[in-house]
């Protein structure tokens, strides 16, 4: 928790800044609507965290979100009765894509950057081929409930967040961080590196499925829904102080990073800063956060930062 403190402070400052401009934000309805809007990104960031802390990347989540929404619309086609079977199918689809990413990365030893970049291209190409750029069908009211009704979206977010924290506190979490910190050491001390990484990718795929369900529910069918989400998720994770390359950072900080990014976008919008600047801000944050993480002032450096990673064995 202590490690998540700095990003939580930044988040608090941003939220306060929003509240000053827009008093409605402090009211429960205003704040919950912000949480609802942040929910998909926070969930994606939690999934991305699992992969990043294990020393990998998942660039495929954005196009996976698009696939989920487009497939859902086509299969449901406005039929309420189809909602639940399709939801189950979407979850399975997310898990399968994640599993493939994980298996290719670990078993075939393709760097995850390439694996998931390839998956991103495969998925976006497949969507385009299947829809010709114009998604067909419609989502049912029951499906849209999850993303549209604030209560549902917030509930799903809370469940995912609690699950992520519990997972990281359990044995799996410790081994995951150990793998990211020093793969060889982890392997020598009995961690099944391949299995741990595959699970991390699979859970990232699952997070994309859940985020897709929320986003599709929020705004309906769109072939652009997932565009750029993978970079937002990575930015959020990095903003939370999680080190690219793995082994350091907490899932709470990663999710707080997602909230912070969303809060920053909201603030920019409230101040009337053009939407085009959003990408610039994202880029600056990404570079600045990584640069700041890389510069380590010796006199500030606590000696036992790496401790818990090795304590696993």
């Amino acid at each position, binding site marked *: 928790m202590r490690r998540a403190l700095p990003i939580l*402070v930044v988040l608090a*400052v941003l939220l306060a800044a929003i509240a000053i401009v*827009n008093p409605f934000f402090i009211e429960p309805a205003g704040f919950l609507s912000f949480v609802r809007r942040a929910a998909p990104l926070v969930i994606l960031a939690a999934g991305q965290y699992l992969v990043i802390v294990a020393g990998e990347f998942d660039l495929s989540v954005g196009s996976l979100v698009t696939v989920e929404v487009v497939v859902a619309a086509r299969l449901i086609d406005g039929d309420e009765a189809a909602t639940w079977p399709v939801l189950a199918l979407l979850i399975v689809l997310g898990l399968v894509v994640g599993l493939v990413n994980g298996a290719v990365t670990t078993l075939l030893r393709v760097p995850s950057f390439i694996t998931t970049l390839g998956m991103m291209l495969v998925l976006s190409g497949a969507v385009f081929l299947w829809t010709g750029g114009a998604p067909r069908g419609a989502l049912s009211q029951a499906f849209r409930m999850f993303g549209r009704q604030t209560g549902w979206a917030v509930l799903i977010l809370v469940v995912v967040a609690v699950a992520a924290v519990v997972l990281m506190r359990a044995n799996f979490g410790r081994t995951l961080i150990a793998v990211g910190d020093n793969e060889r050491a982890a392997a020598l001390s009995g961690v099944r590196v391949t299995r741990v990484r595959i699970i991390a990718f699979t859970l990232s795929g699952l997070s994309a499925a859940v985020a897709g369900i929320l986003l599709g529910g929020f*705004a*309906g069918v769109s072939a652009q829904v997932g565009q750029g989400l993978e970079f937002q998720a990575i930015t959020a994770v990095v903003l939370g*102080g999680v080190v690219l390359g793995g082994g350091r950072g907490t899932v709470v900080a990663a999710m707080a990073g997602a909230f912070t990014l969303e809060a920053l976008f909201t603030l920019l919008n409230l101040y*009337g800063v*053009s939407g085009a600047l959003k990408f610039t801000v994202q880029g600056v944050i990404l570079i600045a956060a990584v640069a700041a993480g890389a510069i380590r002032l010796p006199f500030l450096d606590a000696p036992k930062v790496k401790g818990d990673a090795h304590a696993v064995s």
Partner: protein
Amino acid sequence: MRFRRPLILAAAALTVFAVGGCTSDKPSTTTAADTGAGAAQTAAASTAPASGTGEQSKFFVQADYDAQLAMRSQTAEGPADKPWEQAIAPQMVSTAEYKKDGPYHLCFSNAAVDNPWRQVGWKTMQAEVALHKEISELTALDAEGKDDKQISDISELQAKGCDALIVSPNTTATLTPAVKGACGKVPVIVFDRGVETDCPVTFIKPIGGYAFGADAAEFLVEKVPAGGKILALRISPGVDVLETRWSAAKVAFDASGLQVVGVEFTDGDAAKAKGIVNDYIQRHGKLDGVWMDSGATSVAVAEAFEDAGMPVPPMTGEDQQDFLRKWKDDGLTAVAPTYPTYQWRTPIIAALKILKGEEVPKTWNLPQPKITAENLDRYLQPNMPPLHYALCGCEGMPGFPEKWGGK
């Protein structure tokens, strides 16, 4: 400890934004990006910058604007039940030099089929080809939205022995030389977006973007009381056919008593549009009208008001079925200007006229109807998919509605 620096950086960044925010807390945010060059020619049109619409677009051409607005009230010539064969104020040109015997091989260089509008149009064009036995073949190449691919497509098509070449340019300026190169060899028909040369035999288009934008803006000026807060939502900057829509709306808003509180870009993304509307409702307490340069995200905008527990204010959309259905079901106060997909039928008809030596208009201005509360029922087609465009002019064609995804 390594977190200390990001904290400092973020705090510094925050300060910058906060300070910047105080000085730029005006809604005139988004159009100001690339207007410098066009300021002179548009000075006449931007008399009331205080209305929050920003600088006039550099794409604004007063003469075109005047011509398009005038065309809205002119009666088109041609068969009343076939708007795709009608033309407004046509200046006919002779095509005797292109006359030849059939069967004909037509070629088509298509900018892209990557959005629902082009999907509907492309299906309609293929159906039109199927209506004419004298067309032996239609060779079509899809440029996938890339200028360079379309340039090579056009030269590739010239080697295929086409009797006529139809071009739907991806961008105006870049494709001009390629079209010029083709003009000398085959009769060229350009439609949708134009090119900067008059060498094509005919250029087919609906009235245009100024008429679209003005139709939508004038509706809001009429329905929203003076002083009302308007949010303008655009897809993206710098696209000529979209810039004209906004620039005409800007003229209308500047002359009105309405207050444009924001001009935002949605990238055609429903989630983004919904988020923007949500932010503006929070920031201003309410909105009195929403102007949109296209209908792709209209339903999401209406839903944003519903989710905030507010009535949907007067708003504008386009002729996509999902919006028309929402409009009808919820009794919205709305208008839907159109950029009719039936214009995809006209190039085939024009090609046959040219090859038979019949006169065609030099600039073929097709009528551009708008959907209002009075004629909504005529265009609402519950059996068609949500993203189908009502003005396809394809209802009587073989294979309708299944080929267009309907039931």
